[in-house]
Every structure is written in C-alpha cells, then in structure tokens.
C-alpha cells in the first residue's frame, strides 16, 4: 500500500492547433489507505491525471511519487497499480474466471493459488455463478463487478477506478456504491476513484479533489466542500440542485450589514464573522451563494426571511423544487412536497444567516 503524492504535475498534449494544457500544476497528497475521489465535469483533466498516476500517459512536468519514491519513469507494471476501466475492458475471449486469474497468471502464480484467489474475489463480489460465462453474456453490472474483481485480485500499491459506475442504472449504482464502500472498509487500500458524479464522490470518498479547467479547485472532505467551498465553481458543482448565486450590493451601517440583491427587493443578512470579512476586504458588491436546501418555509427563532414569487412548483417526490423570482433575480428553493404554493403566489422563506455564503465579485473566491 502506498501514499500517493503529486507535486506540480502537468500534462500537455501537443496538437496542430496549439498545445492543450490538460492538467496544470496539480498538487495532491493521498494518504495510505485513503479513499479519494477525483471529481469534475468532463474535460477537466481528471482522466489525464489518473492515467499519469497509472503510467499509461507520460508526465509532462512535475513528480508523481508512491511512498516518497518518484515513479515518473516506471512502467505501469513496475508501479504496481490496479485499474478498473470505464469500459470495463474485460478480455472478450476469456471467461470470467480467466479474466480474474489473468493478472496472477502473468505473474506466474501457480494454478492452485490462482483458483483460490479467484474463488475469494468471486465471493467478495458475489459473482460465483457467472465464473464460466464470457463477458458478452453478462449484464453491465456483472461486467463492472468482474472488472473490479480483476483489479482487486492483485495486491497493488493503489487501486484506480475510472468512472466505473457511469454505465450502471440508478438502482445498481446504489448497490455498487455500498459494495465498494464495504470492500474499502474490509481491505483498507488506497483507492483513487474518478467520477463526474458528485453523489458517488461524496458517498464514497474520505476526501474529494474537485477539478475544473485543468486545475485543482479544492481538496477536502465533504463537509468542507459543502460548507466552505473554495469558490463559486465548487459551490455550484457540489450539491443538487446547484447553489443559487446572486449578485448583491453591500449596505452597511456599521452594526448591521444587508446584502441587497441587484434589481430585486430581497436582501440577505450575513452573520457576524461574514460581515466582518466583507468589511475587511472593503467590498462594495459580492456574490451571495445560498443553497436551495437552506431556504425553508418553516420559521425558527433567529432566522432571517425573504419574500419571493413562485414561478414553478416542481414536485419531485420527497421534496418540491420552487423556482422563484424577486425582481430580476431568479433562484430556487427546496421545500417539503406539502407546500402547494402555485404560480404567481408569493411565499416567505427563512434562512439562517450562517448559511449565507459570500464570494468575491471578480475572483469568485470564497470570502466567508
């Protein structure tokens, strides 16, 4: 097992239309036995990063080290990494058992040990009944488990899982998330999990590295990402439905500060520390971020209130999403399905002043 560290790692793809900088100065330290997710929209450089860790892609700049030892010049085999591919990449001419045994066979492990290990992994992943089938005869979920099994059968320094759940339906995905978490808890291995699905990343990983535009935006556990997002990108990417961002003007009389939404009547009241931070930077305008989950119909002691007009009341089963308008500002709130306020009606919503996130108007960096 290994600590994986990335130090100022860069990936540049040369092309006829100029170089493509796919990964830019990426620093990442993954602890031994940690489950880390690389999260980001497609094209953000997460797959390039992972392919450099594995050794399938040359590193354009920087150092990748396992347990402090640079591995830049090592082959995938020397790095001893196991990877499960998005497309599963099962050898179509081999049976499931042969697929699982393949990595051991290459290493020259004898047949008895191989069979033993295959049986063990098959039990762990519950694929015993399909060991003699060929990959094309399997469902997506089964193929995915076999591909996971082929990675697990080895004793690698680090496991790399590349978008392994993107082809599974919601029900199966839920089940596999649970299994994967269970496997990690049993084996206690370093796992790097690449995904574009924040739900997967937050459910599985100890820490999540959020990437966008070839750069690392933030690396932290789910509470940090959720409550203290580094910038508007992370705040918007983490959480469903996405965070509301509203441009606001700072109205400050020295004791109370109000963030008045531009071209609207509503104003948000930040809590003390936040107001102080805004004062410190001397900002006249800010970007206010408030999560739809943090706008409530229930009013608790000490909550602040805003009023808005409902445009759409979208029923989604366990909750409803209200699309709201106040002047020129549009935002959304997540409310219980019992709220029946319809189009054109006004509604009072409460929020806690500490749930108001404030971002710098130009750099979009989290202020407080």
């Amino acid at each position, binding site marked *: 097992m290994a600590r994986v560290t990335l130090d100022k790692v860069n990936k540049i793809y040369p092309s006829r239309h100029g170089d493509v900088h796919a990964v830019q100065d990426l620093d990442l330290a993954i602890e031994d036995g940690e489950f880390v997710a690389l999260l980001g929209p497609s094209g953000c450089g997460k797959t390039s990063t992972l392919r450099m860790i594995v050794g399938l892609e040359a590193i354009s700049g920087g150092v990748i080290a396992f347990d402090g030892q640079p591995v830049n010049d090592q082959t*995938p085999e020397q790095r001893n990494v196991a990877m499960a591919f998005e497309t599963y990449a099962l*050898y*179509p001419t081999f049976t499931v058992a042969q697929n699982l045994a393949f990595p051991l066979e*290459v290493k020259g492990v004898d047949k008895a040990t191989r069979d033993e290990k295959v049986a063990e992994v098959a039990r762990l992943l519950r694929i015993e009944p399909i060991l003699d089938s060929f990959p094309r005869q399997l469902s997506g979920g089964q193929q995915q488990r076999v591909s996971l099994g082929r990675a697990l059968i080895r004793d690698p320094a680090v496991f790399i899982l590349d978008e392994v759940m993107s082809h599974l339906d919601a029900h199966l995905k839920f089940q596999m998330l649970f299994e994967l978490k269970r496997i990690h808890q049993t084996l206690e291995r370093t796992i790097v999990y690449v995904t574009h699905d924040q739900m997967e990343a937050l459910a599985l990983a100890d820490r999540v590295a959020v990437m966008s535009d070839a750069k690392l935006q933030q690396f932290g556990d789910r509470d940090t990402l959720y409550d203290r997002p580094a910038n508007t990108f992370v705040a918007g990417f983490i959480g469903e439905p996405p965070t509301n961002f509203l441009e606001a003007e700072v109205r400050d009389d020295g004791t109370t500060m109000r963030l008045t939404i531009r071209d609207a009547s509503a104003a948000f009241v930040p809590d003390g520390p936040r107001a102080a931070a805004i004062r410190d930077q001397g900002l006249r305008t800010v970007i206010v971020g408030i999560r739809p989950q943090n706008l409530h119909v229930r009013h608790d002691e000490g909550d602040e209130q805003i009023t808005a007009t409902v445009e759409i009341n979208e029923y989604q089963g366990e909750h409803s999403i209200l699309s709201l308008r106040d002047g020129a500002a549009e935002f959304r709130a997540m409310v219980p399905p019992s709220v029946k306020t319809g189009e054109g009606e006004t509604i009072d919503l409460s929020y806690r002043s500490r749930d108001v996130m404030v971002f710098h108007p130009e750099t979009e960096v989290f202020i407080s």
Partner: protein
Amino acid sequence: MSRTAASAGQPNYRLIRYVLLAFLVIWLVFTLFPLYFAVITALKPVEEINRMVPTFWPETFRIDNFSGIFADPGSLKSLIDSIIIASANTALSLVLGTLAGYALARYLRGALGENLAFFILSQRMFPPVAILIPIFFLFDATPWGTDSYITLILLYLVFNMPLATWLMMVFFRDAPKELEEAAYLDGYTPLRAFFKVTLPLVVPGMISVAMLCWIFAWNEYLFANLLTGTTVKTFPVHIPTFVAGSQTLWNFVMAFSLVAMLPPVILFIILRRYMVRGLSLGVVKG
C-alpha cells in the same frame, strides 16, 4: 370514391415492389447468363460448340468433358500451382498487413499516420499495366528469374499488402485500446498484449482480408501470363491451352473454368459468416 382518393394520394406500394422485382430479374439475367452459358457449354460435345446458331440446351450431354480436361497433366498442376501461389501470398500479405495495420492504428495517429495510410492504400489504385515491363526486367534480374513461384508470390504483395494493411488498420482501430492498457497494467509486454489480447479480436477481419487476398491472387492473369508459363503455370494461364489445331475447345475451357471456380466458392461458403461481419465492420467505420 374513397378508394380512388386513397389510390391517388398514397404511393402504390405493390406497383413499386413489382418494378423493383423486375429490376432484380433483369440484373439476375445479366449476371447469371454467362454462368449458365458456361455450364451448358461445358456439357456439350465438340461438334455442338461451334454452331452459328448456338443451342441453349445441350442436345447431347457430355459429362466426360470434366474428366477429359484432366487428361492433360498440366491441368491439375496448374490448379496446384495456383493454390500454392495464392495461399503463400495470402499468408505473407496477412502477416505483413496485420503488423503494419496495427502500427498505423496505434502508433501513427494524426496527420502523418493518415497520410501514410492513404499513401499505402493508393498503391492499390495504381494501374498495374503501367509497371508491367519494369517488373519483368526487375524479376528477370533476380537469381530465381521470372518463371518461379516466388516471383508471383512476391509480386502479388504489391496489390494485396496495401489492401490488407488498410483493412487491418481499420479493424485495429475498432479494437478497444483499453484492453491492451489493462493488459499492460496486469504486467504484459506490448508484444504479448498484442498477441494474446488484441489479435484474437480481429480474427474475423483477418479472415475476410485473407479471402480478398486469396481470390485476387487466384484470379490474376496479366502478370502470371507475362512472367510465368513454363515451370510455373497458374490456372488462368492454362485455360487458353485447350485447343486442337485452330479449334478452341470451348467445352473443355468452360469445364476447366467451372472446376477452377470451385475452390473460392467453397471457401466463401465456409467463411462467409466472418467475411460479411469483417467487411461490414470496415464499411461502417472506415
């Protein structure tokens, strides 16, 4: 009233179908008539083949023609020569085309690879007659001369290898790269990954490429006639030798041609499943 309105407004599908069927029948008449004429001619006696008004059904059937052609020992030898040359050339084309196609598909993407691949394919489009004389002198200068197996085996590579390379490149592009990458991670060298993992995936493609190469080498007449003919004689060169004085024995010619048609037909029937799959792969993705 309603019926006329319907027939005026909607296309008459039945009529369209009859027209299409009529085209098919015309097409069949054109393609099958030569075959039909070859079969009946092969069964006619010599007296019947040269009539001014040909008979369209033999008056007397001479099945003996098919054994008669093998009275000439050169007949069987020419078939064997053709099999040797076509098979050896196919094997070579396949080995070289597969390796080159793999290299183009995996290691030479981008402009250079595309241009090189197209240059290779363009060899096949070149009119061979243009280089007929230089080729003759070229092989004449070799230690084995023009009239030998190795001459035609090597010469047909000029036509078959570009095709094999191009088609194999297309098949290899369709074979997922992740499989090889998975094999690298599992500890395979690129060479072992190629033979154990990727090559089995393109076997249907290889079979269809082999068929195309084999049939080309089997049928080739121009170069075979010019370069060989004494120690080595392929069957297309042997066919015109069925003469008695100034009389061409069309019945023997046709009988021998029909026999020579059998090997590719049999091969095609056995391998057509792979052939169609392999070719359609190339057509869709190429």
